[in-house]
């Protein structure tokens, strides 16, 4: 598939996701994760840093893409938006890990590059640990709506919060998770 039809395909999924189509959003994130994995592995390997961190960056970027998807302008192509966010996460990562990650030998990076089985890739991100640092409200809202898969009205009934409070808590909580993931100690 050439770049142009890939772009149109991804953009179609993005637009459907923005309108609330969960299956399209999932398909979009899955396809983007493969692009992002290749992007981060190449970049990290080129500057002699541990490619093992690529998956952390992939996941941080996926959370960022999800929580910032309202910043996508529907009339513009999708790919530049995605890569601008990926580049921002990479630069942020490099600034934070300056000095600490520079001593990782390049051999290790190549080993990880060889192991390319996307379905088994894991990051060092621990969702439970990150969740523990959220406010109780946000933690509960994400647990109900995002992890247990309860509908917003079910979550509202069970937690005693209003439906809009649940939605706001989920959104704020995910944004906080994105920040916690980026700022945690490596």
């Amino acid at each position, binding site marked *: 598939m050439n770049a142009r039809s890939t772009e149109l395909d991804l953009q179609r999924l993005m637009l459907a*996701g*923005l*309108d*609330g*189509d*969960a*299956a399209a*959003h*999932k398909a979009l*994130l*899955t396809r983007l*994760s493969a692009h992002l994995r290749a992007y981060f592995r190449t970049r990290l390997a080129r500057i002699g840093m541990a490619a093992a961190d690529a*998956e952390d960056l*992939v*996941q941080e970027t*996926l*959370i*960022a893409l*999800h929580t*910032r*998807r*309202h*910043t*996508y*302008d*529907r009339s*513009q192509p999708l790919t*530049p*938006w995605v*890569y*601008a*966010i990926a*580049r*921002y996460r990479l630069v*942020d990562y490099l600034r934070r890990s300056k000095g600490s990650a520079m001593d990782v030998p390049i051999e290790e990076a190549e080993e990880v590059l060889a192991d390319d089985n*996307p*379905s*088994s*890739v*894991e*990051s060092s*991100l*621990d*969702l439970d640990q990150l969740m523990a640092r959220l406010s109780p409200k946000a933690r509960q809202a994400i647990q109900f*709506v*995002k*992890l247990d*898969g*309860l*509908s*917003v009205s079910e979550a509202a009934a069970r937690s005693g919060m209003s439906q809009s409070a649940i*939605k706001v808590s*989920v*959104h704020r909580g*995910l944004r906080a998770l*994105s*920040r916690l993931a980026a700022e945690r100690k490596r």
Partner: protein
Amino acid sequence: MKTDDLIDVLATNLEPIKRGELRNTVMIALAIGAAAAFCLVLAMFGLPAAAPGGEFSALKVLALAFTLGLVAAGASLLIRSARPGEPGRKLLVLIGLLFFAIFLAALVTLVLTHPAAWGGIVLGPQWASCLVCIPLFAVAPFASLVWALRRGAPTNLVRTGAIAGLVAGALGAAVFAIHHSGGSIPFIAFWYAGPILACAVVGALLGPRLLRW
């Protein structure tokens, strides 16, 4: 955590996104900032005089056109800056042109005036209050714009901070102009444009610290 698991979590119970959400957030922040700055002006100087004199009101219109023009172009550039991967160069050119126009008009005025009178024209009676008040009135708009931008996704934090500072400074200058528009075009060029640019520099310095996400 496996990436596929994360994707499942993110896609579960997906909420639709309202169109124009980012634009609305920035516009609301701008309105709140403008209202706060206007209230501060009222608290400090009271209501503007009922009937301003002829020449001074023409200068007031010029000062308002310059500052509100900057606010309009800057705000729309700010919305673009909060979207990853959108440069918006045309708007930057427009902002440059506004400054160029006011400096050119000031230069022409000075050339047409006798050099002995330059000091009086440039250093109008209220130049010092411009220097203090414009940045002071820009504080509230800057804070509310930072709040809005943190809800966006600016990728160039220095640039975005600078534009936020510029918009806040121009808004501060606009509310200041309701009361004091100075006595001449060169006065506006120096003591309005100068503090606005200073606000932009401060915004550029604060951007990386305040806007990280």
